[in-house]
Structures are given as C-alpha cells and as structure tokens.
C-alpha cells in the first residue's frame, strides 16, 4: 500500500471513530491502534487473573459459609473476566500463549494494586469495596470504547462486578458494627488500601504519556484525574457512614468545585511498585509462572486425549 493510500485509510478510520462507529476485528485499523489495544486489553486481562491471587488466599479462611460462597463466586468471576478479555485481545492477532509469555517475562504489566498483600479478613472487605469500586469506575468509562470486542467484554464485566463491590462493603459494614478489634481491623485495611486504590487510576494527567491518544480513540472517555476525583467523591461518604476514617489529613470538602480536595499521592511508591519492587510482585509472578508450568502436562494430556478420541471416531466411521 502506498503512503497516500494509508493516509487516506487513516483519515477514514479517524472519521469513523469521531462518529462513534465501532471498530470490529476484521476492519482495517492503524498499526498503532492495534498495538495500543493489544497492550491495554491484555494488561487488563492479566490484572483480572493476578487479581485472583490475593483473594483466593482467603477462601479457605472465610469466617462463614455465606462469606465463603460469595468470595468463591467473586474469584471465579475474575477468572471469567480474564477470559473475556484475553479473547477480545486475541481478535487483534495476538495468541493466548504470547500474552502469557509477556506476563511471565515481565514485559506486560498488570494493575499494581495486586502487588500489595491481603493480610487480614478485613482486606477482603477493603479490596471489594475500594479496589473493585475503583475498577468499576474505570470500566464503566470503557463500555463506550471504540473497539467492539473490548466494549462488549466491558459491558458484561460491569454487569457482573457490582456484586463484588457490594459484598466488600458489606464485610466492612459488619466489621465496623463489631467489637473494637473488628473495627480496628476494618480501619487498618482502609488505611493500607486507600492510597494504592487512588493510584489505580494511573499517573496524573500531565504525566500520563498515553492519555491524549487514548482519549482520541475513545480507549479512554475520561482522564485519570477526573476518574480519581469521582472515586474519592463517591467513597468518602461511604466511609463516613460506617464510621471509618479516610487516612488523609488533607481531605476536605471543597464547596466551590463540589468535590473533595485531597493530599499528595506518593508517586514514588507507585513507580517503585510498577517497576517490580512492591511487597508482592515476585510472589504474584511466581504463582502465575508455577501455575502455567505445572499445568503444562495437563494441557498436553488433554490435547493428546482429544486427538486420540478424534482418530478413534474417524476409524469407526470408515
């Protein structure tokens, strides 16, 4: 294709996005659009799969059957969400194996929040309430994104996730109604997860290298700072209602902007964790790599068995 032709196609493509046309897998798309989407969708998928680890860790220790079935269902949903997203990324021409390879080699990132440990049962509450709460805000904004398979996966995921946040908040609510030790445990979980949750929205707008291009492609409908503000404004009253204190001395209602002002985020910590120096980066990656390597013989055996069955069927048909 000549440069002229490509430029022409690019113009038509941008025009389609402007008029809210969805882009589907077999449509022509600029290479950068394809690569950006592969990167974002696969990292989103990795986040779901790695996100199963901190909570999976608590399933056997859930305090009641009610809590246990809910947590099991939530972790299973996350596995499902990872699968929807891997499938969506595969439509762009990357294989499932390549994506795993990128995750395991550290080339692909996942949400840094999962590099923090889940130390107490209250962390299951804080994760559902704050981490899923933040994820929902990010994901609702993505339901209208321009790439069809990604948007459809997001719609399905958003529908399923509201229970995740509610079950988390309910855990916090119960703890805050309990004994002093339980209240302290809930407050401690909030203290540890508050700032990492705010970091989930990514760097500040003026330091976010991809924002402008992503907004243009509707891969982002709102900026990191807007989404973060929305999260804070909706979460502060939820904390107050159950008597928990947001661990930010600078947090203050600003009547003029009709939102909360908040203290500085420790971006050094954020970049440290992104670069692999968080409390659990190594542990999480080890768990994923082990699962993949130790599962190899199972995947191979299943494939061989299926082939054997197929051959047997063909023989019988003769």
């Amino acid at each position: 294709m000549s440069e002229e032709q490509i430029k022409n196609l690019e113009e038509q493509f941008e025009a389609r996005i402007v008029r809210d046309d969805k882009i589907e897998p077999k449509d022509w798309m600029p290479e950068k659009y394809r690569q950006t989407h592969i990167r974002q969708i696969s990292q989103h998928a990795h986040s779901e799969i790695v996100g199963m680890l901190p909570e999976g860790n608590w399933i056997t220790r859930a305090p009641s059957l009610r809590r246990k079935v809910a947590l099991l269902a939530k972790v299973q949903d996350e596995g499902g969400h990872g699968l929807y997203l891997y499938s969506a990324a595969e439509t762009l021409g990357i294989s499932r194996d390549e994506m795993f390879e990128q995750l395991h080699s550290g080339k692909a990132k996942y949400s840094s929040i999962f590099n923090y440990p889940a130390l107490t049962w209250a962390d299951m509450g804080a994760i559902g309430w704050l981490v899923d709460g933040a994820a929902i805000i990010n994901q609702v904004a993505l339901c209208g994104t321009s790439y069809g398979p990604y948007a459809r996966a997001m719609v399905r995921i958003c529908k399923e996730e509201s229970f995740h946040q509610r079950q988390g908040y309910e855990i916090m609510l119960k703890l805050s109604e309990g004994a002093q030790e339980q209240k302290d445990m809930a407050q401690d979980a909030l203290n540890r997860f508050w700032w990492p949750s705010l970091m989930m929205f990514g760097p500040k707008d003026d330091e976010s290298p991809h924002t402008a291009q992503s907004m243009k492609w509707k891969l982002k409908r709102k900026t990191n700072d807007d989404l973060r503000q929305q999260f804070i404004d909706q979460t502060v009253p939820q904390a107050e209602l159950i008597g928990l204190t947001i661990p930010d001395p600078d947090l203050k209602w600003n009547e003029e902007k009709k939102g909360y002002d908040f203290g500085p985020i420790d971006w050094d910590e954020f970049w440290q964790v992104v670069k692999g120096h968080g409390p659990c980066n190594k542990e999480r990656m080890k768990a994923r790599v082990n699962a993949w390597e130790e599962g190899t013989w199972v995947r191979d055996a299943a494939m061989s068995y299926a082939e054997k069955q197929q051959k047997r069927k063909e023989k019988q048909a003769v």
Partner: protein
Amino acid sequence: MKKNWPLWEVFVRSKNGLEHRHFGSLHAVDAEMALENARDVYTRRNEGVSIWVVESKHITASNPEHNGELFEPAQDKVYRHPTFYNLPDEIKHM
C-alpha cells in the same frame, strides 16, 4: 510437541423463543470441553438455556473491504420497503 488448544466460538440462547446469539470465544481441546467451559465462562448467572459451540476455523466471514459490492446494492432498492408505495390516507390495515 506442543500444540495449542483450538479456539471455539460460543453461541447462547438466553431463553426459548429467542435465537442463539454470539457470546464470545474460548479455548478447548474438543467440542465437549468447549461446551463445559462455555457453561462456566458465559452462563454463570442463568444467561442461557442452550449453548452452541463451533470451532472458529470453521466460520467463513465476509471481508469488510468488500462491504461495498456486498451491501451497497441493497441501498437503492427502496421499493423493497412498504413506505415506497403511496396509498390514500383512508386505507386502513395495510
């Protein structure tokens, strides 16, 4: 030798009376496993009463680059729509 599990497309009928609709895709070694995985991945909340799976390689798709010759001929055939025909206002039930 390493072989990847093939890709399957999943279609779900959400209730009797409705058609099967494309829900997504997944990897499985054979049709039976594809059905079982589809049940776990796509119908965890009563989304369906029937599932079809078909290996993705068996689907032949039209090429969007040929959309012009495929679909444009239908655009100027307005006489295929009821509104093309002028009838007096008094006419009922037509």
